[in-house]
């Protein structure tokens, strides 16, 4: 089933978050996780032989014709939120690079004051 693949993507994303040391790779892992979640959400709305939920010529709205439009609307929101978080994360990564001169978490050292 295709849903297994999407859950697989989520798991790959979590594995990346657990093991990676490079900040950019962490952001990439986060995006893999997000894509997995979004695809999974879309897949929960699929109806066999359904078409895109848009009224057009000759199609009255009856059950079974359209796929569930709500997950698609939710994914639209989730994608935009993902873009916002990614933009902010990349900005912070750039600031960290300016400050520490490295993108590797291990080479950075602590940043407390005392």
């Amino acid at each position, binding site marked *: *089933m*295709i*849903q*297994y693949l999407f*859950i*697989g993507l989520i*798991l790959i994303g*979590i*594995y990346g978050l*657990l*093991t990676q040391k490079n900040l950019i790779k962490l952001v990439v892992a986060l995006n893999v996780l997000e894509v997995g979640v979004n695809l999974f959400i879309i*897949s*929960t*709305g*699929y*109806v*066999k032989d359904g078409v*895109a*939920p*848009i*009224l*057009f*010529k*000759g*199609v*009255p*709205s*009856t*059950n*079974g014709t*359209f796929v*569930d*439009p*709500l997950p*698609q*609307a939710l994914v*639209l*929101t989730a*994608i*935009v*939120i993902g*873009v*916002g*978080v990614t*933009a*902010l994360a*990349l*900005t*912070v990564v*750039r*600031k960290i690079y300016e400050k520490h001169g490295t993108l590797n978490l291990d080479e950075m050292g602590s940043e407390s004051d005392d």
Partner: protein
Amino acid sequence: MMKRVIAALLILVLALFIYGNLYSTGEGKLFPKFGNVNLSERVSNKFINKNANGENGVVTYKETKDAESGSANMVTSIVVNYRSFDTLGEVTVLFVSALGVGLLLSGKSRMKFKTPPNFILKAGVRIIAGIILITGVYIFIHGHLTPGGGFPGGSMIASAVLLFYISDDEFRTKVKSFKFLEGTAGSLYLIFGLLGLTMGGYFLYNFLPTGVVGELFSAGIVPIIYIFVGLKVGSELSNLISDFLSEEGK
């Protein structure tokens, strides 16, 4: 190495946990199998038939007049009508993250490329940018009829701005005017919501007539809101691009 093995084991446990429980069989309501979704059990059934507030018969394209949500694209009718409050939040997310990027990377001069843009890129952008801009505007104006809407349309506009950036070494957007556009579009969205509150008694109430399903001038405030969203998303993403391509002044 050890850490990777532990992480892999953890993922394995998580995978077994998800697969074992999600597709379990037994008593009670189960997670529906892929494709076997019964829409009549979900709230979206009413969104498709446009009868959330009461029965109104079958909705037919280009015939039904004054349906409760007049947009032919059901995703749009959910995004900008039934769950418009989420979209307001979504616009705010983009607004605040663009603001945060601007606060952190407020460089004075723009980043120079190592290789200057070549002739083909420059000439190509001049031809293609106008088409992209017009397509973007088309997409968000027709968001209630065809696939698309404010967010894809806005991103297309921003992609034209990105093309200007990479084709011209000196190009800088007028961040201030984009900020003004962004603020205006956001405020107008909220003011339309408050207008609905005073005219219909509900925040973000669709107070205009919804017209005939499938026509350009239909769906009440939906296309108007999508135009604001499109302009706002376009200006926000353009600001993001210009902030990312700026560096501390010399």
